[in-house]
């Protein structure tokens, strides 16, 4: 049982390049989330999904897009990377509040540098 798996683990991009981060969970969770972690700012929610085919904006959605075509996968896209997007990105998944009080399970993170 792998839990939440993120790929890649590390990536270096040049300004203006695009990339997609993949998050996969094998716990059959309904909810999935993308966060970014920056020093002194904790984790901030970028986008989230409460089910297959649905996505919503979080606290810092600008410059990112997401898709949830399959229940187990949640993709985070950067269409035109900027240095301000240098960060560590975490994916998480959970069951609905009614079932599991939103205990979120996190992936190992993707460290992204944009030069």
């Amino acid at each position, binding site marked *: 049982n792998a839990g939440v798996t993120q790929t890649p683990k590390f990536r270096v991009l040049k300004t203006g390049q695009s990339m997609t981060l993949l998050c996969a969970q094998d716990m059959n969770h309904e909810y999935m989330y993308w966060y970014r972690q920056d020093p*002194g700012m904790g984790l901030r*929610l970028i986008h989230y999904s*409460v089910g297959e085919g649905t996505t919503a904006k979080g606290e810092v959605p600008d410059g990112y897009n997401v898709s949830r075509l399959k229940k187990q996968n949640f993709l985070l896209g950067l269409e035109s990377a900027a240095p301000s997007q240098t960060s560590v990105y975490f994916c998480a998944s959970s069951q609905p*509040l009614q079932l599991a009080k939103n205990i979120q399970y996190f992936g190992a993170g993707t460290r992204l540098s944009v030069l």
Partner: protein
Amino acid sequence: AQSVSQHNHHVILSEAASLELGCNYSYGGTVNLFWYVQYPGQHLQLLLKYFSGDPLVKGIKGFEAEFIKSKFSFNLRKPSVQWSDTAEYFCAVTPGSGNTGKLIFGQGTTLQVKP
């Protein structure tokens, strides 16, 4: 807007010292409260949680936290820290009702335990 504030950004302790990390939140309704820990190079792991009932909750590795509703606080404590407790600690809150499960994180506290 809902927010979570962790007052201690960087704490340095010697082994066997007692620990208390502060966490305050701003939300007037029912909340679910969490402490997550991130050991160096690892992903976030749930340390403990509060949903309802006894305001003193116990988590893994000897940690405990007390929910004081009147103070909007959920402070983390450990009577005697170990070198292996060196990590970053995040307090997080989610509304007790609602259906999105979004977590709001504090800025994090880096704990360094000297052997």
